[in-house]
């Protein structure tokens, strides 16, 4: 649609790269100042921005798609026989865990994107505009929710293809993914804070991986914690990833574990309550 616009305006004039001094006056005439976008509209505009970027560079979805495929296939066939007797039995428990792990692993991209915006200077423009401060962050998080959903969809589809049979049916899986999205959204606030604090996108990635690796592996994603030494178990028991995995499994298989679900929701609220204000302070504070 836009292509036709630009071709019609340029017909016959080789000099469209010229400044149109005659037009400048018109476009610079002050007009009625609109009322700045409210928090929700502004957030949606930023979400639209995130989606446009995916549209322009679809390759940035590469890791979102490759991570889950690699994890699902590798872990199912590598460990399935040893841990659960057969890959088919193992995947029933593993898949919700892989779902949790892949989505958790891509949450730091929010922080990296934010850090890039700051380094490039575009954040200065947003910050000097009369809009609700958190909108840029909330919008980016909304856009990222799309990436998470995509990763979840791929994981589930692949899982079903290689033998995952969720007892809870489509509804159970959707509930599990929904809970996962809620938690990921909350977890992302850690990375936005990190993204505002660090000097480069690379250091954001490093910091987040240092946190995420122990969190995802020292959990019940891959194996039953009963086989682990006591001190590891103690950590696994309080690890929110463990609760999330338990909750996701229970929902997917149609036997909701209300304790685990409640624990995940509480963890989500705590994460937002702590890190959203930290992020906002860093955002408003001078850079």
């Amino acid at each position, binding site marked *: 649609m836009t292509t036709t616009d630009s071709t019609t305006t340029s017909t016959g004039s080789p000099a469209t790269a010229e400044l149109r001094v005659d037009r400048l006056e018109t476009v610079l005439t002050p007009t009625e100042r609109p009322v700045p976008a409210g928090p929700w509209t502004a957030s949606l505009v930023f979400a639209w921005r995130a989606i446009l970027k995916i549209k322009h560079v679809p390759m940035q979805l590469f890791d979102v798609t490759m991570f889950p495929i690699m994890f699902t296939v590798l872990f199912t066939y590598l460990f399935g026989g040893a841990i659960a007797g057969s890959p088919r039995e193992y995947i029933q428990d593993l898949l919700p865990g892989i779902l949790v792990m892949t989505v958790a692993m891509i949450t730091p991209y929010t922080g990296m994107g934010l850090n890039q915006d700051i380094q490039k200077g575009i954040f*200065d423009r947003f910050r000097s505009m009369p809009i609700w401060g958190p909108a840029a962050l909330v919008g980016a998080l909304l856009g990222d929710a799309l990436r998470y959903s995509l990763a979840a969809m791929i994981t589930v589809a692949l899982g079903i293809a290689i033998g995952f049979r969720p007892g809870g049916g489509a509804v159970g899986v959707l509930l599990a993914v929904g809970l996962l999205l809620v938690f990921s959204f909350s977890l992302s606030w850690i990375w936005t804070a990190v993204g505002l604090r660090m000097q480069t996108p690379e250091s954001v990635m490093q910091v987040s991986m240092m946190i995420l690796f122990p969190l995802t592996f020292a959990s019940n994603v891959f194996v039953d914690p009963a086989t682990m030494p006591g001190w590891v178990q103690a950590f696994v028991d309080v690890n929110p990833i463990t609760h999330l995995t338990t909750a996701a499994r229970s929902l997917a298989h149609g036997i909701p574990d209300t304790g685990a679900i409640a624990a995940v929701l509480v963890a989500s609220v705590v994460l937002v309550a702590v890190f959203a204000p930290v992020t906002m302070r860093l955002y408003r504070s001078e850079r």
Partner: protein
Amino acid sequence: MNPHLAVETIGLAKSFGATRAVAGVDLEVRSGTVFGLLGPNGAGKTTIVRMLATLLRPDSGTAWVLGHDLVQDAPLVRRRVSLTGQFASVDEELTGRENLVMIARLHGMPPRPARSRADELLEAFGLADAATRLVKTYSGGMRRRLDIAATIVVTPDLVFLDEPTTGLDPRSRNQVWDIVRALVAGGTTVMLTTQYLEEADRLADRIAIIDRGHKIAEGTAGELKASVGAGALHVRLRQAAQRPEAERLLAAALATEIHLEGDPTALSATVDEGDEERVAHALAELARAGVAVADFALGKPSLDEVFLALTGHPAEPADAQTDTAPPAGGPHDEEAA
């Protein structure tokens, strides 16, 4: 607070750790004028502009922007001012059109008016052909124009332009100058920073010279140049033997003392700003008397000379940072300190 002033600061100051980036600056910018902040690298220009655009909080001093207290009424200030930062603040991963639509939407325009505003601006800024290309692929001049277009999506009352032409070729520079003139014609007040006396000279009604966080001089371009005295006329003759006669003729025509240079064919004289006609006349006198001129040059006072005259030290960067195109690391490198 004076209602005719778009910007008024008293003792504005900001430090970064031990660096006194801005060390107590008083400024008065009249509404509807162009005000230039002129200074070398590291002088504190960006810091001043970022404070006035509410991106940095001053350590001390008071400032009113468009009648609002800069610190207490920051949200009100934000609604009426707009900043084009030193480093392009557009989204490289979107198209030019998408950038402008995004900004228009954030300003609260509904989708359809936002799109037509974007198209109108792209057209006027000579970017219609590149509208649907990613900004990544734009040249420096195009990026600058888009950046300025984004700044005026909703016409602000006060625009800050931080080194709008640094790194641009002469043609792009002229385009930016045209934009600034059009802005002012529309009633917007413009505060711009630059390292070039010529640019300040062409655009600004008043100029403040900033050095190491201090305002060391202020006035119109003419006043500042007059404070330096002037430029210099350098003449080189074909034959050294004709120098005494050339000296006599020039002294008479220019009514000033003539310096004899080390080179036996060279002479020079200080010339006041606005004396170009007199210089032309003096050179014509030489020709009429048969004194062959090999070469001549009329040096205009440069920022360096203005600096030297005002501070006694050359306009060297206050730190090691460079000023050219934005480095890959972006505008915030120095913050690592």
